[in-house]
């Protein structure tokens, strides 16, 4: 449930006809529908197909494939960086876990569509591991750059998505990569006075 940013004075007492109450409810309902919509988002794009008897080419299928390819490249980079620099592995674990979750969500969404052939598991063999700098700081900088690039790429793909739920999913992935890039960058090493929750 999305919490209100700030309630109007007397907010909890707002009745069902109150503007913010109605909007908060709308957002909550939206969140509920999107949980289902995330899995069916790609299907939704094909429901208006003129020929329901024939396999329709999902307009977002190519996007899903692009997303998974980008995620696989990121995962390879994370694995190679962690292998080359074990002291960085702990910092990168959470990022890697996030991208594995992203990949699973995209595969799930793609599986609900048609004409999508996305490997359900990230390839661990056969792919050429990316070169990793022998210097830890440079290696970490490469990861930061890759995350920033991923944020741009996922944003671009979210912009192109025809399915609203799929666009929302990709947008959140873009925001996640953006946050990881900022958090991993040396400039973000120090939290402000309050610190992390």
């Amino acid at each position, binding site marked *: 449930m999305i919490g209100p940013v*700030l309630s109007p004075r007397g907010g909890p007492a707002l009745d069902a006809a109150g503007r913010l109450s109605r909007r908060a409810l*709308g957002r909550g309902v939206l969140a509920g529908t999107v949980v289902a919509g995330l899995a069916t988002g790609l299907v939704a794009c094909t429901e208006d197909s003129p020929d329901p008897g024939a396999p329709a080419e999902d307009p977002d299928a190519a996007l899903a494939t692009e997303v998974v390819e980008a995620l696989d490249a990121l995962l390879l980079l994370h694995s190679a960086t962690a292998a080359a620099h074990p002291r960085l592995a702990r910092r990168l674990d959470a990022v890697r876990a996030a991208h594995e979750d992203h990949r699973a969500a995209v595969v799930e969404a793609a599986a609900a569509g048609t004409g999508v052939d996305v490997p359900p598991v990230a390839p661990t063999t056969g792919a050429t591991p990316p070169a990793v700098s022998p210097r830890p700081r440079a290696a970490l900088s490469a990861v930061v750059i890759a995350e920033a690039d991923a944020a741009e790429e996922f944003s671009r793909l979210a912009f192109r998505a025809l399915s609203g739920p799929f666009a929302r999913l990709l947008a959140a992935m873009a*925001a*996640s990569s*953006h946050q990881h890039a900022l958090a991993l960058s040396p400039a973000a090493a120090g939290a402000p006075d*309050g610190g992390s929750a």
Partner: protein
Amino acid sequence: MTGTLTPVDALQDALAAEHAAVHLVAFLSARVPASSHPELAARLRTAYVAHRGRRDQLVRMLRDRGAEPVAAFPTYDDPLELTTPPALAARARTLEEDCCAVYATAVGATWGAARQWALQALLESAGAAIALGAPPRTWPGLPERLA
């Protein structure tokens, strides 16, 4: 797609959130002494400018679409119980994460220039949360996926 939310509805929701955000960030900022907590004070000032700018942009976007922008409420429930900088910073982080949810929803409900704008706003809010000390999230803006 995303339920029955129209692009104008999504932008109105975002505007309602930004009205509240402008008020809340001003409230938080006023309670953080710049002399003792200059970094947090500066980040709250930056956040205030960002929220005010997005509020004004949303007003223009809605008027361009022939809609009457929702007005701010005359008053809001201020979190008077928050008195320490860590607590004020935590509230600011929550605010930015709430804004991420509003903008992620707007991405799904819009297309074209409005979607591009919502994407940018989402990234800005996500970045602001990090600047205020929040940990990176796997799904910023998707509260239903929070563990």
